[in-house]
């Protein structure tokens, strides 16, 4: 009964094992921390919204979860996951883009 296996939709081979995962966790955390530490206060609201958008990548996970769901309960939860994640990704993008669009220097606003 293959459908009882954990969802391995993303890969069959080359598993990310414990230590590899730790390395990736660690490096990603360092990267995130260092990059964000350079963002000036003036952009903190768009940054919050932008990082909100970035975790919208959860949508691809939700798609795989739904794609491998078989029982009605799983399908229902899967659909909810996809719906929520899609909302996260689209909303996060629109809001961030709208905010950033407004930031202009004197030069740019003169040109208009």
């Amino acid at each position, binding site marked *: *009964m293959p*459908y*009882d*296996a*954990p*969802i*391995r*939709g*993303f*890969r069959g081979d080359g598993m*990310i094992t414990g230590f590899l995962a730790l390395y990736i966790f660690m490096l*990603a*955390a360092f*990267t*995130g*921390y260092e*990059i*964000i530490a*350079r*963002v*000036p206060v*003036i*952009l*903190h*609201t*768009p*940054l*919050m919204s*932008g*990082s*909100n958008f*970035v975790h*919208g990548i*959860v949508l*691809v*996970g939700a*798609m*795989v979860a*739904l794609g*491998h769901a078989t029982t009605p309960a799983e*399908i229902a*939860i899967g*659909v*909810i*996951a*996809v719906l*929520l994640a899609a*909302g*996260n*990704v*689209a*909303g996060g*993008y*629109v*809001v961030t*883009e*709208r905010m950033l669009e*407004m*930031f202009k*220097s004197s030069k740019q606003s003169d040109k208009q």
Partner: protein
Amino acid sequence: MTLPSYMSTVVDAVYFIAAVLFIWGLKRMSSPRTARRGIVWAGAGMAAAIMVTFLLPGLNNLGPMAIAIVVGVALSWWVGRRVAMTAMPQMVALFNGMGGGAAAAIGAVELIRFNRAFIAIPDTYPIRPEAWAAQTAVPLSAVELALAFLGVLIGAVSFTGSLIAFAKLQGWMDRRFVFPLQRFVNLAIFVIAVACAIIALIAGIEGHAFAWSLLIGFILLALVFGIAMTLPIGGADMPVVISMYNAFTGLAVAFEGFVLQNEAMIIAGMVVGAAGTLLTQLMAKAMNRSLANVLFGNFGGGGEAQEIAGAMKPIDASDAAVMMAYAERVAIVPGYGMAVAQAQHKIWEFAKLLIDRGVKVKFAIHPVAGRMPGHMNVLLAEAGVPYDLIADMDDINPEFSNIDVALVIGANDVVNPMAKTDPNSPIYGMPILDVASCKNVIVIKRGKGKGFAGIENALFYADNTRMLYGDGQAAANELIQGLKALDG
């Protein structure tokens, strides 16, 4: 639908590029000049990642999937486009909650499937390895199982907590809900939820199905805990809380990404987790409070009024306009009240008139003015104020003594000198904008309303301060009329 095997390499490559673009996009946020391009690139990476996911082999339910995506995207896009700039904080909360919910749901599906795998095996104790080995299914490893549970917990808390934050900021839930022994009750909810998870987890690691009641109880309690934990926190503290939930969602996504073995989710999630943690700390620090104080401190509202000697001296708009028209340097200090009054457009119109007259105008922004970090910057940007006219607290504070008039509009706590002088004040020690050292101060506010911290402000009673009472937008309008009258 079978695809050539090199497709899986294409999919992996696209995920990789998407992860790079996310990091790259966030990196470009280090300057307003590059930030927009950055988010557009990140968006392109996201779109590509979503598209190639459809190419993965063995996906079912494609119909419902497509419909759910279209509906989710369309709704959010529409709301996100329409909503007013002042409502941005609650929008971020809403979308963040959705992400947390999605991560929790993915974890729930994984756990349900794990459990279902046991239906075929008689669940005896001690466990019979032959039965288990007969399974074709590869069970989740202990680490994967643990992270799946953790992801569900964190994601669920972020989900309901963010929704409460949304409701509070939207004004649907004005009061804080406080009752005796509340912290104790909250702790109890949390402990029971975690206990359910641990018992189930141990069963899973030993090779047993876990009781459905444990699983369902765990998920429900996690959802309830998110609500219970957020309810007592004041609406004005919500931005800190939202930033924290943003980090939570990031972590939940990373953990579920590990369970699903998807590096893009792991990396994007961890980056957001770290970013959100840092941002939360920065915010709490700028408010001069600890995160614990925000979460459990029952801060704000109430407030023990301290009496201040002196009186508040009013000024009318035309006098104020004249004063600024003949000043050499003017600093405009906006606060939460400007956001409430939506006065940013009028204020910028007024500032432009001053600039046309040769006055040197700067906007002075406190890091926690308003209700979100950088809140004022977003509003001023919306009104079209170029960002090089905007000065940080650290840059402008030494300059205030050279400034003729400071126009404070709807700011209160961030210009309160008692943060420096009164050790009993709840904001004691918070760095403030040092407007008091300007030659003249004009304060626009509606009346004697207190700020977020609920305390009196000695600035309003100072000798060189004049009060211009009125709604922010109306007052700005009167100032504009005053200037225009000057020119004839």
